[in-house]
């Protein structure tokens, strides 16, 4: 059961990453257009964030890997994404006035807006791997499962956002919904905590 909760957190994080990426891209098109540059910039910024997050998360996991750490890591991107409508548009307006080259401009603004949540969402993965891999001979399958499930979450997030969410909700509301979905990880963390406390007690 507690395994299932950790896998669900990996799934939801993957879901939120891609939902945020697609909706975030949509907030930049009105400034820099839907040219191939904007997509290139956003994808590379998301990957850079994840890359940093994986490495940092791995180091953190070796020091402490408990449910409290996990919930703290998730808290930051949740807040950043839920509050996006309050800082995203005003920052976009500022960039519009700057009138930079679309390549430089889209790279800069997506780095500012998107890299932090991605770093933290990326660092969730190694922490979960460490929590699951209690048995040394099973680290491979634990890591493999976590990546597989988080990527499945990303697929679900991509399809859900692009096929449905964009036609249902305004972009900024959609981003908030993605943030709220990520916030549901908190309940999972809480449940996990309660369950393990009971087990420890018994």
């Amino acid at each position, binding site marked *: 059961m507690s395994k299932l909760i950790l896998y669900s957190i990996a799934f939801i994080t993957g879901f939120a990453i891609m939902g945020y990426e697609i909706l975030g891209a*949509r907030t930049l*098109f*009105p*400034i*820099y*257009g*839907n*040219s*191939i540059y904007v997509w290139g910039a956003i994808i590379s910024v998301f990957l850079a964030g994840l890359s940093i997050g994986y490495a940092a998360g791995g180091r953190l996991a070796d020091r402490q890997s408990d449910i409290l750490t996990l919930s703290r890591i998730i808290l930051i991107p949740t807040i950043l994404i839920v509050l996006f409508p309050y800082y995203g548009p005003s920052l976009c307006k500022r960039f*519009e006035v700057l*009138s930079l080259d*679309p390549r430089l401009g889209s790279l800069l603004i997506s780095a500012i807006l998107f890299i932090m949540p991605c770093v933290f969402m990326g660092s969730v993965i190694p922490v979960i791997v460490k929590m699951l891999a209690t048995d040394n001979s099973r680290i491979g399958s634990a890591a493999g499962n976590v990546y597989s499930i988080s990527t499945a979450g990303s697929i679900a997030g991509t399809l859900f956002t692009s096929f449905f969410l*964009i*036609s*249902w*909700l*305004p*972009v*900024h509301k959609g981003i908030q919904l993605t943030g709220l979905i990520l916030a549901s990880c908190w309940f999972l963390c809480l449940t996990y905590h309660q369950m393990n406390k009971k087990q420890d007690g018994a």
Partner: protein
Amino acid sequence: MKTNFFAVLLLTFSFLFAFSSLAEEKAGFWESIGNFFLPHAEKRNVLFEKQTQYFLVTVEEDHNGFRHMVFNPNKGSQGIWNPKMPDELISNYCRFTTIFLPAMKNPPKRVLFIGLGAGVVPRFVRKNFPDTVIDIVEIDGDIPVIAENYFGFKKDDKINITIGDGRNFINRNKEKYDVIFIDAYTSECIPFQLTTEEFYLKVRDSLAPDGIMTANVANLGKPTFIASEIKTARAVFPPLAVFITGNRSNYILFSAADRKLNTAELKENASRIEAEKNLSLKIGDMIDTRMPEDDIKKMIEGVEILKDDFAPVETMK
């Protein structure tokens, strides 16, 4: 172990090969079915083909000798040009665009095209107004080259081409234009950032006093989108006029920044300008297709104005 691995590899490749050849055969089969049923699929001579950054562009010659610029196979033409009569406007949309002639108060000093296509309309503008500065913004860097090589589009020192997204261009623009031509939707892709209220506001900011904006909204069987688009443009340009091309293939939106375009006045100007410039376009007939105000009101009732924050153009019906 090793032999097993190679056997699997070999098997995979042979499957892939078999499937790819099957797929090719199927395409041929469907193509022949298509040619049989679709009247427009007459055998066209493909003069040129290129996979650009954004589209698979082909230049096709039909049985009349007309050249078509086609984005992605079997879709409508983005531009048509007749090499034998290079100054003729052939496609309906291009002909209707000439309504800008009677709508203007003075000859244009500077005009902007958002979306180049085959470059037939810029050519028309240049022929009739040799001194006008023509700015063009086109997302695909290959299109101007193809337009020059196959569609008689000629660059000169008063034509400036910017490669990039139209929205980015208009956001950064500081010039004032006498006419802005918006034609940036292809049959499969409607860039949402060129449909919204915020976009039309930027367009209005870029118009000179008495400037004209015109937008081509192709009828792709999405009536809600067309109604929303008209409502959006009208929210920014209240005196918006809508003209409908034959067989309702395109809705051509026209508006001056703040003055109303009077139909009788337009027709009067049209016959004067046609005589002056020695044109045989029958602009008057096009002006007759103007949508009555009541029809527009009825059409846009209950649809939403498109905004940067909510413009689900991909899924609109």
